[in-house]
């Protein structure tokens, strides 16, 4: 890379938003170029200055209360419909019934939709990782190499463990987006099979999703108190469940594993 190319992507570099190839190239360049390395340090410095200057404008305490009141007001308005003309009043019960049926139908279907969407995004992330030769951004079986790599790339610190002893060696990790949310993707191998383990913060609704087969791939989802996990592979269900058991064993024994 030349200096002006580096210059154009330096800002994305410090945000961890470049591909692994580009990251590597910028890395090499700033190690050998005094000017760009100075720019790099200045950008880091700028970030620190902003972060340490305490300029975040938090919402005033009364705003939350006001908002709650406004929402309640809004809700009452929609419940009573004070402005509705009397001649429509008779059709109101029918309308309400319709709404209730509609809502019941929606609540039946909505979870399915988001469930399908999730399974689909898991499967496509998995397939993509196998096809595009982009299995890992950081390739290492050392959990102490993989875990720190996620710092600054994610706003949470996923638990990373190697299970080579147990027949599920850690291959590496990468950053993934599932339905537009960042996730830590950890790659494991069992015999010839690749397992993608996706970790996201805040237990999602995924725990309710039963083990599923999507496009021929086996998917299981589960939660613990800090994260939601999805494992996907062409392994059979029992081998995949064994993998989950290994992981659960680690994470539940050390609840602080999420922190460094």
């Amino acid at each position, binding site marked *: 890379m030349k200096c002006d190319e580096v210059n*154009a*992507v*330096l*800002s*994305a570099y410090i*945000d961890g*938003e470049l591909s692994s190839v580009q990251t590597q190239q910028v890395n090499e360049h700033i190690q050998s170029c005094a000017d760009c390395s100075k720019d790099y340090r*200045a*950008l880091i*410095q*700028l*970030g*620190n*200055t*902003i*972060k*340490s*200057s*305490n*300029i*975040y*404008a*938090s*919402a*005033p305490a009364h*705003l*939350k209360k*006001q*908002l*709650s009141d*406004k*929402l*309640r007001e*809004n*809700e009452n308005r*929609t*419940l009573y419909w004070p402005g509705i003309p009397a001649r429509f009043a008779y059709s109101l019960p029918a309308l309400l019934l319709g*709404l*209730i049926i509609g*809502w019941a139908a929606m609540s039946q279907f*909505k979870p399915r*939709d*988001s469930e399908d969407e999730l399974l689909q995004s898991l499967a496509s992330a998995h397939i993509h990782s196998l096809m595009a030769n982009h299995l890992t951004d950081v390739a290492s079986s050392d959990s102490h190499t993989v875990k720190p790599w996620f710092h600054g790339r994610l*706003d949470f610190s996923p638990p990373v463990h190697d299970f080579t002893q147990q027949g599920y060696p850690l291959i590496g990790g990468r950053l993934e*987006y599932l*339905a*537009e*949310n*960042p996730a830590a993707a950890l790659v494991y191998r069992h015999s010839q099979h690749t397992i993608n383990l996706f970790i996201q913060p805040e237990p*999602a609704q995924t725990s309710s999703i039963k083990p599923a087969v999507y496009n021929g791939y086996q998917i299981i989802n589960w939660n613990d108190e800090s994260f939601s996990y999805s494992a996907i592979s062409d392994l059979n269900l029992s081998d995949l469940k064994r993998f989950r058991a290994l992981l659960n064993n680690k994470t539940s024994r050390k609840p602080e594993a999420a922190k460094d």
Partner: protein
Amino acid sequence: MFGKNKRKQFEKLFQPHLDAAYNLARYLCGNAYDAEDIVQEAYLRAYRAFDDYTNDNSRAWILTITRNSCYSWMRRHNMNLNVSFDEEVNSGDIDTLLSSSAIPQSPEQIAESNSKQQLVRQAIKSLPIEFREVAILRELEELSYQEIGLVLGIPNGTVMSRLARARKRLRILLANVNEQER
């Protein structure tokens, strides 16, 4: 029944983002008083649209609505979208930044804003709005480029180049502050 659950669900999802929404509104519209109104308006809009909410990223969703509310608010109140930012600077020459009104010049102004906090705040406020919003979302909210792209409705590449330019300006504006820290 439904109404009550809906409100509870809504508050559970979006109340945690109240600070983020307010912070964005505060920096976009430029004053605390309007920011409160804008955030309230945004949350009511979001509440009305909540039935259609399928997005999983609640923060990006509420920030998108907040930003739109800011823009329509400013348009409605005939506020200049480049508040506290004069044309000369806007026209591009980065060197004029240093001599512009973006930086406190008179002794009073300097005394008033000699704390780092005020200098940084002032520097961010002096950015044109399209740079300001990208800087807020990245530096203060720490959103990913993809999330910023969602909120602003622009591709990731544009996020990258805008943020790079915003930072370039901030570096110049805050050169002295950085110097002191070194």
